[in-house]
């Protein structure tokens, strides 16, 4: 199994590499188009800011490379948001794989933003969640969310219901951090790696 992780200016990829290693897979961190295109799986992680991340990807042509991928791809956190059409963060046009907008959580409803901590995932409808039951807890850290649409394969409620996970063709994405979500996260990563 050859898993490439998109290298760009968003952090903490180390924990994704460690999580793969715990599953017995050595990930390759790279921004080389040919390695990304030929990998069995591509993970597009990210903790960072949307507009500067998009600028970075565009300046290196990685936006086109990511859009053209045909193997299973998994966006994580900011990765999910960048795979959507548009983000309110820096008013940024994103990669447009998912026809959805990314919005900032409203801060006027008495709940704290960022959404930090463990929350449950419901309405699971994808093989990405094989052997994971609805109501399982996963770890979140984010201030922006993707709205719910036809690509939504799991949802979570915090202030309002939002897309916990998305899927369109070979593109999968999760707003939470599977690499930090204990055994549930490991199961989800395993499902992504084992997907035929």
């Amino acid at each position, binding site marked *: 199994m050859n898993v490439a992780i998109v290298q760009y200016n968003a*952090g*903490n990829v*180390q*924990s994704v590499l*460690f*999580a793969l*290693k*715990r599953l017995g897979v050595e990930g390759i961190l790279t921004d080389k188009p040919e390695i990304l295109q030929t990998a069995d799986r591509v993970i597009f992680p990210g*903790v*960072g*800011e949307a507009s500067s991340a998009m600028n970075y990807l565009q300046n290196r042509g990685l936006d086109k490379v990511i859009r053209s991928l045909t193997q299973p791809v998994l966006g994580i956190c900011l990765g999910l948001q960048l795979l959507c059409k548009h983000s309110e963060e820096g008013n940024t046009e994103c990669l447009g794989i998912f026809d959805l907008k990314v919005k900032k959580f409203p*801060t006027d409803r008495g709940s*704290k*933003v*960022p*959404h*930090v*901590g*463990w*929350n*449950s995932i419901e309405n699971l409808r994808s093989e990405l969640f094989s*052997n*994971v*039951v609805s*109501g*399982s*807890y996963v*770890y979140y*850290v*984010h*201030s922006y969310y993707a709205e719910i649409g036809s690509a939504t394969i799991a949802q979570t*409620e*915090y202030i309002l219901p939002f897309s916990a996970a998305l899927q369109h063709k070979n593109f999968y994405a999760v707003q939470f*951090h599977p*690499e*930090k*979500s*204990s*055994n*549930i*996260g*490991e*199961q989800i990563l395993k499902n992504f790696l084992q997907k035929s």
Partner: protein
Amino acid sequence: MHTKRIIPCLDIKDGRTVKGVNFVNLIDAGNPVELAQKYAQAGADELVFLDINATIENRSTLISLVKEIASVLNIPFTVGGGIGSKSDVYALLQAGADKISINSAAVRNPNLIDELSQEFGSQCIVVAIDTKSIASTHYVHTHGGRKATNVPTLSWAKEVFQRGAGEILLTSMDADGTKQGFDLPITAQVAESVAIPVIASGGAGSKNDFLNVFREGKADAALAASVFHFGEILIGELKNFLSQNNVSVRKSDTNIKP
């Protein structure tokens, strides 16, 4: 449903876990990597590692310890202690820490909070505040609680929120080590005056103390050390107790189908 978090804290000195009473009288509490794994399996939601003897000489020891922890741990963790610059933060995040916690350096130079949150994102910047009541007003203390400042805790909490901190780790030095319960009034005051999560710390002695800090203290998370290290409170039992009392918590991973 969003849950309250239970966070064991591991005080680190020269690569070992230690625990003291009121910041002094340290005793050895075990190997941090083994403890970290044990806590993750027991259902801890997150871990905090505080390097209580942070010096330049042992910084590299800490970095390699962080790498070791990150490679085995499948839940988030925060590292704090003696962090004073962007390069410190960069090195710890690169090593695999999810968040870093700053304390004295932020009091000395509040702009550091702005700089770090802009550079690395608010989500990974925790500002730790050590507070102690002097003549019925809470003041910020620094240097592991040894130095008093004239900064009122409440105004400092508001300022660190406005400067971009992602979370506040509030330790009551009056309560710390006493096992008589968290300092509920100051915790509630801080939690209600900022729109970021507040982690309450100091004073945990019983399961009821945790219930109180979530209900009356309005905390988003509760941190403790010795009651967990010495097995006086088991995390699974604590979570069952909280859940029975209508506090939303993440129950341990029973959700994977066999």
